[in-house]
């Protein structure tokens, strides 16, 4: 009965689980969540599109078009690493489930 001490200890300590939707855990520094894109800073160089392993970023330089599809994204943060102007950062948002396709597109 070696686990008995654990069981008794658990009776007096507070639960280790969190009541998730009501209390949210703080994400750590450098967390790889939903992208934060700054259109003003972007120079449409297309390096992020080239680096993306799942080809989810589309860039057309002449038309100043930049688009990312979150539903395909694997959050590897390579786009963030190669961005020369740091206009693309992976933020702290992780609740990105949606029933609309448009919600997954970042422009």
């Amino acid at each position, binding site marked *: *009965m070696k686990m008995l001490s654990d069981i008794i200890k658990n009776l007096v300590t507070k639960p280790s689980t969190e009541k998730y939707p009501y209390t949210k855990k703080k994400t*750590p520094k450098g*967390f*790889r969540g939903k992208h934060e894109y700054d259109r003003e800073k972007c120079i449409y160089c297309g390096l992020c599109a080239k680096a993306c*392993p799942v080809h989810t970023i589309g860039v057309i330089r002449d038309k100043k078009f930049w688009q990312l599809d979150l539903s395909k994204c*694997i959050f*590897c943060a390579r786009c963030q690493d190669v961005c020369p102007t740091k206009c693309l950062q992976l933020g702290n948002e992780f609740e990105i489930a949606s029933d609309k396709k448009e919600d997954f597109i970042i422009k």
Partner: protein
Amino acid sequence: MNEDTCYTLPLGPQHPALIEPEYLKIHLDGETIVNVDINLGYMHRGIEKALQQRTYQQDQFLIEKICGICSSIHTLTYCNAIEKLLEVDIPERAKYIRMIVAELERLHSHMLWVGIAGYEIGFDTVFHMSWRDRELVMELLENISGKRVGYSMNTIGGVRRDISKDMAENIRTIMDKIDIRLNHYINVFVKDSTITKRTKNTGILTQKDAIKYSAVGPVARASGISCDLRKKAPYLLYDNVDFKEITHNTNDVESRAVVRLKELLESTKIIRQCLHLMQKGELTIKIPDTVPEGETISHGEAPRGEIFYYARSDGTDKPYRIKIRTPTLSNIHSLQAMLKGQQLADLPIIVASIDPCFSCTDRITLLNTRTGMSKSVDATYLKTLKR
């Protein structure tokens, strides 16, 4: 054998031991297992072909998806192979960071296993407690890499993120906490009668059988075979750090549990040494997109055993061939020796005791395009191929 009491029980592809699918055909005499047929192939995803269609840089993220639990060792071994082809040496700091992440991964993988083992024998307290402690390691990995699963730390030519001083201090305090818990679990698995009654003398794999069925990793070490690649063929800087190779010779499920848990105490030792030895320096070196023509092999000690990569380049930016052999493919055959003569009720814990990972394993399935029939490769088929 009495013919009236003999029957065959199909177990799986959805089965009680693990959430991953595989099919075991069990021949029973009453409740006793007489023989077992292992059928793999339900998780085949065609990853090796997909690797050939992507560049080396993109491959490292696909390789990470082969296994959710041991994703870091897969990329580590892949990167080692490609670095061998490129004939480059990565910075020392990067090597230490790779080792730290690999050992943290071993910690969380084995602690997950301890929980699964408790769950399979119907002792859910062990399951909940060990997964609570595992959470400390998972949070640590999230702090280091930014994700709980799929750390994306290794890249060809180094690592992608640094471990800061505060982080190193954080790792040290958590390792101290983990050590206390691990010693407690070793005590539990050796002395608690609720557990030992299920684990002692079940799933015996003798040393002779372990060699015969070519078992690797903790399964082989629990049968008294010393086969730790970190000692036998040191990669990265494993020869710089001091640790013991754990072997045990009671050959049963308990032995496998003890080997795994004691191994973790060595892992925390390695992590502390790495943090101490780590000097300031570069994290990555610049590497070209194309890889010169050639072929190479690379292996590493994954939490479940030896992992093997073969890489061949034809001088372009995409690999010509990458062959992967994961530890479960070597270990799964030893189930035949372990299960013979055992009770059916002990099957889940014995199957779980090799810590199988089927999404890693399934790679060989033959598909007849005319009839649509698929079949797994067995020894007789391989013999027909022999000329």
